[in-house]
Protein backbone atom coordinates (compact mmCIF):
# COMPACT_ATOMS: atom_id res chain seq x y z
CA UNK A 1 0.00 0.00 0.00
CA UNK A 2 1.49 3.30 -1.07
CA UNK A 3 2.29 6.02 1.41
CA UNK A 4 4.05 9.35 1.03
CA UNK A 5 6.52 10.40 3.66
CA UNK A 6 7.14 13.95 4.86
CA UNK A 7 10.58 15.18 5.70
CA UNK A 8 9.81 15.60 9.38
CA UNK A 9 9.63 12.74 11.82
CA UNK A 10 8.90 13.47 15.44
CA UNK A 11 8.54 10.81 18.07
CA UNK A 12 7.82 10.35 21.69
CA UNK A 13 9.41 7.84 23.98
CA UNK A 14 7.43 5.28 25.83
CA UNK A 15 6.18 1.74 25.49
CA UNK A 16 3.65 1.14 22.75
CA UNK A 17 0.98 0.33 25.32
CA UNK A 18 1.10 3.90 26.67
CA UNK A 19 0.76 5.60 23.32
CA UNK A 20 -2.55 7.17 22.48
CA UNK A 21 -3.70 7.61 18.91
CA UNK A 22 -6.64 9.78 17.93
CA UNK A 23 -8.38 8.43 14.83
CA UNK A 24 -10.68 10.76 12.90
CA UNK A 25 -13.01 9.46 10.19
CA UNK A 26 -16.63 10.21 9.35
CA UNK A 27 -17.13 6.65 8.05
CA UNK A 28 -18.43 4.20 10.66
CA UNK A 29 -16.86 1.29 8.86
CA UNK A 30 -13.46 2.94 8.51
CA UNK A 31 -13.45 4.05 12.14
CA UNK A 32 -14.00 0.49 13.24
CA UNK A 33 -11.29 -0.84 10.96
CA UNK A 34 -8.65 1.76 11.81
CA UNK A 35 -9.41 1.35 15.52
CA UNK A 36 -8.86 -2.37 15.22
CA UNK A 37 -5.66 -1.90 13.22
CA UNK A 38 -4.26 0.43 15.86
CA UNK A 39 -5.34 -1.70 18.81
CA UNK A 40 -3.80 -4.74 17.16
CA UNK A 41 -0.59 -2.74 17.07
CA UNK A 42 -1.07 -2.24 20.83
CA UNK A 43 -2.01 1.44 20.86
CA UNK A 44 -4.73 3.03 22.89
CA UNK A 45 -7.25 4.47 20.47
CA UNK A 46 -9.89 7.14 20.60
CA UNK A 47 -11.99 7.38 17.44
CA UNK A 48 -14.12 10.39 16.57
CA UNK A 49 -16.26 11.17 13.55
CA UNK A 50 -15.21 14.72 12.71
CA UNK A 51 -12.46 17.30 12.83
CA UNK A 52 -14.58 19.37 15.17
CA UNK A 53 -14.84 16.52 17.69
CA UNK A 54 -11.14 15.86 17.31
CA UNK A 55 -10.33 19.45 18.29
CA UNK A 56 -12.75 19.26 21.22
CA UNK A 57 -11.03 16.14 22.45
CA UNK A 58 -7.57 17.61 21.96
CA UNK A 59 -8.68 20.52 24.15
CA UNK A 60 -9.45 18.24 27.05
CA UNK A 61 -7.17 15.25 26.52
CA UNK A 62 -3.51 16.20 26.91
CA UNK A 63 -1.97 12.88 26.02
CA UNK A 64 -2.49 12.28 22.32
CA UNK A 65 0.66 10.98 20.69
CA UNK A 66 -0.53 10.86 17.09
CA UNK A 67 -3.53 11.87 15.04
CA UNK A 68 -4.59 9.78 12.07
CA UNK A 69 -7.32 11.40 10.04
CA UNK A 70 -9.30 10.81 6.90
CA UNK A 71 -8.89 13.54 4.30
CA UNK A 72 -12.43 13.75 2.93
CA UNK A 73 -14.84 14.64 5.68
CA UNK A 74 -17.81 17.01 5.64
CA UNK A 75 -17.49 20.43 7.32
CA UNK A 76 -13.82 20.09 8.18
CA UNK A 77 -11.51 18.10 5.95
CA UNK A 78 -8.49 16.24 7.27
CA UNK A 79 -6.34 18.93 5.65
CA UNK A 80 -8.18 21.66 7.56
CA UNK A 81 -7.77 19.69 10.77
CA UNK A 82 -4.06 19.29 10.02
CA UNK A 83 -3.73 23.05 9.53
CA UNK A 84 -5.48 23.82 12.79
CA UNK A 85 -3.28 21.39 14.67
CA UNK A 86 -0.10 22.79 13.14
CA UNK A 87 -1.19 26.37 13.80
CA UNK A 88 -1.74 25.64 17.49
CA UNK A 89 1.19 26.18 19.82
CA UNK A 90 -0.18 23.44 22.11
CA UNK A 91 -0.87 20.87 19.44
CA UNK A 92 1.68 21.49 16.69
CA UNK A 93 4.10 18.83 17.97
CA UNK A 94 1.56 16.05 17.58
CA UNK A 95 2.31 14.05 14.42
CA UNK A 96 -0.61 14.02 12.00
CA UNK A 97 -1.14 11.33 9.39
CA UNK A 98 -3.67 11.71 6.60
CA UNK A 99 -5.60 8.84 5.02
CA UNK A 100 -7.45 9.00 1.74
CA UNK A 101 -9.09 6.61 -0.67
CA UNK A 102 -8.00 8.82 -3.57
CA UNK A 103 -4.50 9.08 -4.95
CA UNK A 104 -4.34 12.77 -5.81
CA UNK A 105 -0.73 14.00 -5.96
CA UNK A 106 -1.62 17.68 -5.40
CA UNK A 107 -3.61 16.70 -2.32
CA UNK A 108 -0.79 14.57 -0.99
CA UNK A 109 1.83 17.27 -1.58
CA UNK A 110 -0.35 19.92 0.02
CA UNK A 111 -0.75 17.81 3.17
CA UNK A 112 2.95 16.99 3.40
CA UNK A 113 3.86 20.65 2.88
CA UNK A 114 1.47 21.59 5.67
CA UNK A 115 3.34 19.25 8.00
CA UNK A 116 1.66 15.86 7.75
CA UNK A 117 3.96 13.06 8.75
CA UNK A 118 2.63 10.68 6.17
CA UNK A 119 -0.18 10.13 3.73
CA UNK A 120 -1.72 6.68 3.55
CA UNK A 121 -3.94 5.39 0.80
CA UNK A 122 -7.00 3.48 1.92
CA UNK A 123 -7.62 0.72 2.63
CA UNK A 124 -4.99 1.08 5.31
CA UNK A 125 -3.23 -2.19 6.13
CA UNK A 126 -1.78 -3.50 9.35
CA UNK A 127 1.69 -3.23 7.81
CA UNK A 128 1.09 0.49 7.09
CA UNK A 129 0.17 1.09 10.72
CA UNK A 130 3.12 -0.88 12.10
CA UNK A 131 5.59 0.85 9.82
CA UNK A 132 4.10 4.24 10.47
CA UNK A 133 3.88 3.98 14.22
CA UNK A 134 7.40 2.58 14.47
CA UNK A 135 8.73 5.53 12.52
CA UNK A 136 6.57 8.32 13.88
CA UNK A 137 6.25 7.25 17.48
CA UNK A 138 9.69 5.84 18.22
Amino acid at each position, binding site marked *: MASYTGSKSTGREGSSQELHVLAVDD*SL*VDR*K*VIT*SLLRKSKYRVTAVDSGKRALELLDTEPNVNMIITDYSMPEMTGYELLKKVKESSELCQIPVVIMS*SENVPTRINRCLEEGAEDFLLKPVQLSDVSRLCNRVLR
Partner: protein
Amino acid sequence: MDYVHLRRQAASLRKGLFDQGYLDEQFYQLEDLQDDASPNFVEEVVTLFFRDSARLMANIDQALDKCVKDFNKLDVYMQQLKGSCTSIGASRMKTDCSAFRECCRDENIEGCMRSFQKIKREHSVLRQKLESYFQLLRQAGPVECATRPNK
Protein backbone atom coordinates in the same frame (compact mmCIF):
# COMPACT_ATOMS: atom_id res chain seq x y z
CA MET B 1 -25.76 -31.48 13.71
CA ASP B 2 -23.03 -32.12 11.16
CA TYR B 3 -20.58 -29.32 12.01
CA VAL B 4 -18.02 -30.53 9.51
CA HIS B 5 -20.56 -30.28 6.73
CA LEU B 6 -21.60 -26.79 7.85
CA ARG B 7 -17.99 -25.66 7.92
CA ARG B 8 -17.45 -27.05 4.44
CA GLN B 9 -20.53 -25.20 3.22
CA ALA B 10 -19.29 -21.98 4.80
CA ALA B 11 -15.84 -22.43 3.27
CA SER B 12 -17.36 -23.14 -0.12
CA LEU B 13 -19.59 -20.07 0.08
CA ARG B 14 -16.63 -17.95 1.09
CA LYS B 15 -14.51 -19.31 -1.78
CA GLY B 16 -17.32 -18.54 -4.18
CA LEU B 17 -17.46 -14.93 -3.00
CA PHE B 18 -13.81 -14.52 -3.97
CA ASP B 19 -13.94 -16.60 -7.14
CA GLN B 20 -16.94 -14.67 -8.46
CA GLY B 21 -15.34 -11.33 -7.66
CA TYR B 22 -17.74 -10.21 -4.96
CA LEU B 23 -14.90 -9.89 -2.48
CA ASP B 24 -11.23 -9.00 -2.83
CA GLU B 25 -8.12 -9.25 -0.68
CA GLN B 26 -9.25 -6.54 1.69
CA PHE B 27 -11.68 -9.07 3.19
CA TYR B 28 -8.63 -11.15 4.19
CA GLN B 29 -7.35 -8.11 6.08
CA LEU B 30 -10.57 -7.98 8.06
CA GLU B 31 -10.25 -11.68 8.84
CA ASP B 32 -6.67 -11.08 10.02
CA LEU B 33 -7.97 -8.49 12.47
CA GLN B 34 -10.36 -10.99 14.03
CA ASP B 35 -8.99 -12.59 17.17
CA ASP B 36 -9.99 -13.77 20.64
CA ALA B 37 -10.47 -10.18 21.78
CA SER B 38 -12.75 -9.48 18.78
CA PRO B 39 -14.13 -12.89 17.80
CA ASN B 40 -16.95 -11.44 15.65
CA PHE B 41 -15.02 -8.57 14.16
CA VAL B 42 -15.65 -9.44 10.51
CA GLU B 43 -19.37 -9.89 10.97
CA GLU B 44 -19.55 -6.66 12.98
CA VAL B 45 -17.78 -4.68 10.27
CA VAL B 46 -19.92 -6.23 7.55
CA THR B 47 -23.09 -5.48 9.52
CA LEU B 48 -21.97 -1.87 9.94
CA PHE B 49 -21.24 -1.71 6.23
CA PHE B 50 -24.70 -2.84 5.22
CA ARG B 51 -26.35 -0.47 7.68
CA ASP B 52 -24.25 2.46 6.53
CA SER B 53 -24.45 1.65 2.84
CA ALA B 54 -28.25 1.41 3.05
CA ARG B 55 -28.29 4.93 4.47
CA LEU B 56 -25.98 6.25 1.76
CA MET B 57 -28.01 4.57 -0.94
CA ALA B 58 -31.20 6.12 0.43
CA ASN B 59 -29.50 9.53 0.21
CA ILE B 60 -28.52 8.83 -3.38
CA ASP B 61 -32.06 7.69 -4.21
CA GLN B 62 -33.43 10.96 -2.83
CA ALA B 63 -30.86 13.02 -4.70
CA LEU B 64 -31.67 11.19 -7.95
CA ASP B 65 -35.38 11.81 -7.42
CA LYS B 66 -34.95 15.56 -7.38
CA CYS B 67 -35.79 17.45 -10.55
CA VAL B 68 -32.52 19.34 -10.52
CA LYS B 69 -29.67 16.87 -10.27
CA ASP B 70 -26.78 17.90 -8.12
CA PHE B 71 -23.93 15.89 -9.58
CA ASN B 72 -21.47 17.16 -6.98
CA LYS B 73 -23.65 15.92 -4.17
CA LEU B 74 -24.24 12.62 -5.91
CA ASP B 75 -20.50 12.22 -6.34
CA VAL B 76 -19.84 12.95 -2.68
CA TYR B 77 -22.37 10.34 -1.56
CA MET B 78 -20.96 7.80 -3.99
CA GLN B 79 -17.41 8.54 -2.87
CA GLN B 80 -18.48 7.67 0.66
CA LEU B 81 -20.15 4.48 -0.49
CA LYS B 82 -17.16 3.51 -2.57
CA GLY B 83 -14.91 4.12 0.42
CA SER B 84 -16.92 1.75 2.56
CA CYS B 85 -16.94 -0.87 -0.19
CA THR B 86 -13.17 -0.59 -0.43
CA SER B 87 -12.81 -1.02 3.32
CA ILE B 88 -14.59 -4.35 3.42
CA GLY B 89 -13.36 -5.65 0.08
CA ALA B 90 -16.70 -5.42 -1.74
CA SER B 91 -15.00 -5.52 -5.11
CA ARG B 92 -17.90 -5.57 -7.55
CA MET B 93 -19.72 -2.81 -5.72
CA LYS B 94 -16.54 -0.76 -5.69
CA THR B 95 -16.24 -1.05 -9.48
CA ASP B 96 -19.87 -0.05 -9.94
CA CYS B 97 -19.41 2.94 -7.65
CA SER B 98 -16.51 4.08 -9.83
CA ALA B 99 -18.72 3.78 -12.91
CA PHE B 100 -21.37 5.92 -11.23
CA ARG B 101 -18.82 8.58 -10.36
CA GLU B 102 -17.65 8.71 -13.96
CA CYS B 103 -21.24 9.32 -15.01
CA CYS B 104 -21.41 12.15 -12.46
CA ARG B 105 -18.29 13.69 -13.94
CA ASP B 106 -19.89 13.48 -17.40
CA GLU B 107 -23.20 14.78 -15.95
CA ASN B 108 -24.80 11.75 -17.53
CA ILE B 109 -27.93 11.25 -15.47
CA GLU B 110 -29.12 8.18 -17.35
CA GLY B 111 -25.74 6.57 -16.83
CA CYS B 112 -26.00 7.40 -13.13
CA MET B 113 -29.43 5.80 -12.90
CA ARG B 114 -28.26 2.64 -14.67
CA SER B 115 -25.14 2.38 -12.53
CA PHE B 116 -27.12 2.92 -9.40
CA GLN B 117 -29.58 0.16 -10.25
CA LYS B 118 -26.60 -2.15 -10.72
CA ILE B 119 -25.14 -1.07 -7.39
CA LYS B 120 -28.42 -1.84 -5.66
CA ARG B 121 -28.53 -5.30 -7.22
CA GLU B 122 -24.94 -6.05 -6.26
CA HIS B 123 -25.59 -4.75 -2.75
CA SER B 124 -28.58 -7.03 -2.36
CA VAL B 125 -26.77 -10.11 -3.66
CA LEU B 126 -23.70 -9.47 -1.53
CA ARG B 127 -25.83 -8.94 1.54
CA GLN B 128 -27.68 -12.18 0.95
CA LYS B 129 -24.51 -14.17 0.40
CA LEU B 130 -22.68 -12.73 3.39
CA GLU B 131 -25.68 -13.20 5.65
CA SER B 132 -25.82 -16.85 4.59
CA TYR B 133 -22.09 -17.18 5.17
CA PHE B 134 -22.21 -15.78 8.69
CA GLN B 135 -25.27 -17.82 9.51
CA LEU B 136 -23.42 -20.97 8.51
CA LEU B 137 -20.43 -19.90 10.60
CA ARG B 138 -22.66 -19.36 13.62
CA GLN B 139 -24.29 -22.75 13.15
CA ALA B 140 -20.94 -24.44 12.70
CA GLY B 141 -19.67 -22.95 15.94
CA PRO B 142 -16.12 -21.76 16.74
CA VAL B 143 -13.77 -22.84 13.99
CA GLU B 144 -10.10 -22.80 13.19
CA CYS B 145 -9.10 -20.08 10.70
CA ALA B 146 -10.33 -20.87 7.20
CA THR B 147 -7.64 -21.35 4.64
CA ARG B 148 -7.45 -18.82 1.85
CA PRO B 149 -8.71 -20.03 -1.48
CA ASN B 150 -6.13 -20.89 -4.10
CA LYS B 151 -5.66 -18.08 -6.59
